[in-house]
C-alpha cells in the first residue's frame, strides 16, 4: 500500500519557471521526505507482490486451483449471466434501503420517547433491536424465509423475494436504529435548551432541531451499514431467489468449476470498493470539519 501523502508541498511543482520564489527550507525538506517515503513504499510493495507471484505457483496444488478457480474461458462464459443476476441484488437492495431508513428512524424515535403512555412503544423498540441485533442475519433470513411461507398463503404472499427482503429489513433496521439513536444522543443539550427556550415543544424540538442535525452526523456510519447490506443481499439466495450467488452456484455445478464464484466476487468488488472509498472520503471530511486541523 502506498501511504497517503500530505499535499502541503504538492502545489509547488519543479517547474522550469526560475523566476519563482525559491523553496523554503521546510519545503525542500518536505519534498525530500515525500520522495523518500514514496520510493520506500514502492520498493516494499514490489518486493511483496513479486514474492507472492513467484512463490504461489510453486505450491503443489496450484495448477489445480488455477484450473478450477481462475479459469479464463469459463469466466468469459458465465460472467454475463452473473451480471444479469446481479441486477436482482441491486433491486432487492434498492427497495430494502428506504424501508430500513424509515423503520430505523421510527425505532430510534420510539426509544427516545419519555411519555408514560408511549412506554409500550419504547419497550417494543428496545426488544426489537435487542432481538434482531442478536441473531445472525442469515438465521433471520432462514427463519422468516422458510417459516412464513409455511403459513400457506397464496401468491404473491409466499414469495421468497418478499420474505427474504423482510428479513433483511428487520435485521438492518435494528442496526440502523442504533446508529440514529447514537446520532440523536450526540446532539448537545444546549441545542435542546435553545429550542425549548423559544417555546418549541419537545416533539417540535426533536423534529426541527435534533433529528436534522443527527442525520447529518450519522451519514458516514450509515453508509457503512448500507455497504454491508449490499453484500448481505446475497444471503437471500439460501431461500430460493436466483440472484448472483445462486446463479454462481448453478454455473459452478454446470461446469464443475469454482470460477463463477470468483466472477461473483469480482462483480461485488466493482460496486463495493467505490462505495467504501466514498464512505472513507465522507468520514475523513467529517473528521476534518469537526476537529479542525489534523495533526500529522
Amino acid at each position: 500500500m502506498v501511504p497517503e501523502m500530505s499535499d502541503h508541498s504538492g502545489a509547488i511543482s519543479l517547474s522550469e519557471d526560475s523566476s519563482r520564489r525559491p523553496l523554503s527550507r521546510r519545503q525542500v525538506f518536505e519534498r525530500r521526505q515525500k520522495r523518500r517515503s514514496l520510493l520506500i513504499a514502492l520498493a516494499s510493495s514490489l518486493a511483496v507482490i513479486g514474492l507472492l507471484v513467484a512463490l504461489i505457483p510453486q505450491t503443489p496444488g496450484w495448477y489445480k486451483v488455477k484450473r478450477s478457480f481462475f479459469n479464463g474461458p469459463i469466466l468469459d462464459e458465465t460472467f454475463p449471466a452473473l451480471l444479469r443476476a446481479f441486477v436482482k441484488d441491486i433491486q432487492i437492495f434498492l427497495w430494502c434501503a428506504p424501508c430500513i431508513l424509515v423503520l430505523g428512524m421510527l425505532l430510534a424515535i420510539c426509544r427516545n420517547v419519555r411519555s408514560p403512555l408511549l412506554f409500550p412503544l419504547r419497550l417494543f423498540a428496545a426488544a426489537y433491536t435487542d432481538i434482531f441485533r442478536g441473531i445472525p442475519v442469515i438465521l433471520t433470513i432462514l427463519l422468516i424465509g422458510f417459516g412464513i411461507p409455511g403459513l400457506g398463503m397464496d401468491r404473491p404472499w409466499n414469495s421468497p423475494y418478499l420474505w427474504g427482503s423482510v428479513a433483511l429489513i428487520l435485521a438492518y433496521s435494528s442496526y440502523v436504529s442504533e446508529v440514529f439513536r447514537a446520532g440523536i444522543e450526540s446532539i448537545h443539550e444546549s441545542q435542546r435548551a435553545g429550542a425549548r427556550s423559544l417555546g418549541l415543544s419537545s416533539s417540535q424540538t426533536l423534529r426541527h432541531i435534533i433529528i436534522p442535525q443527527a442525520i447529518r452526523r450519522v451519514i458516514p456510519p450509515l453508509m457503512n451499514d448500507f455497504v454491508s447490506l449490499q453484500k448481505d443481499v446475497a444471503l437471500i439466495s439460501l431461500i430460493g431467489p436466483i440472484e448472483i450467488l445462486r446463479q454462481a452456484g448453478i454455473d459452478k455445478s454446470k461446469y464443475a468449476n469454482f470460477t463463477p464464484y470468483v466472477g461473483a466476487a469480482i462483480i461485488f468488488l466493482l460496486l463495493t470498493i467505490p462505495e467504501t472509498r466514498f464512505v472513507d472520503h465522507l468520514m475523513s471530511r467529517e473528521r476534518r470539519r469537526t476537529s479542525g486541523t489534523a495533526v500529522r
Partner: protein
Amino acid sequence: MTPKILLDEVHKSFGTRSVLQGISIEVAQSEVIAFIGSSGSGKSTLLRCVNLLESIDDGAIFLDGVDISAPGLNADPVRQKIGMVFQSFNLFPHMTVLQNVSLAPHKVLGQSKKESESHARELIARLGLSDRADGYPDQLSGGQQQRVAIARSLAMNPEVMLLDEITSALDPELVGEVLDVVRELKSNGMTMLLATHEMGFAKEIADRVCFLHEGQILECASPTEFFNNPTHERTQQFLQRVTDAGRL
C-alpha cells in the same frame, strides 16, 4: 401593582449539591436587574429556572402574578413570553440566520412562513445583520452570532429577556456590539434579568445590582449604592477581587 416577576423562596439542588437556597426577589415591569457573583454562585441556574429549563424544588416563581412554577404546568406557553440568550449562543447550526430567527414564530406562534420571515428580516436588519441573513451561524463572528441569538429571542415578542453571561464567550472587541443591543432593549422598556461579569456594564444599565453567593442573594442595591457602598463583607471582598483584576 403586581410585579412582572416574583421569586419566592426558590430552592434548587442538583443531587446533593444545593445551588439555589431561598432566592426571593421582585422585578417590576421594565426593570433591569444584573446578577453578579463568582462562578458557581447560582446565577445561570437562577435564570434557567425562570425560563423553566430547570424545575425548582421548592418555592414559587410568578409571572404577572401567575405561578409558572406549579408542577405539571405546561411550560411551552410560558417560555414564549420569556426569551433567553445563552453564553454559548446555542444557534441552530443547520439553519441559516433567517431560519434561526423565523423558525419559532412560524412553528410556535403559527405565523405564515412569509410573515415570520419578513418579521425576521426586520429584526435582523435592526441588529445590523442584513447582509448575513442567508449565511450560516459558523460563518459569523461571535458577536454577530450572539446578536442573531438575541434576534431569535426577540422574534417571539417576549415580555421578559433573560441574558445569561451573553458576552463571556466573546473576544473583547466584540463585546460592545452586543451590549449596544441590550442598551436598545432597555430604552424600549424591556424587563431584563442578566447574569454578567461585565461590572462596568452592570453599573451602567442595571436598575438594581444583586450579589449572589452560594445560592443566596446577599444584597441588592442601585448600581451607585452597590459599587460605592457595598454593605456585605462578601460583596466587598468580591468587588475588591474584581478591582484588583482590573475589571472595574
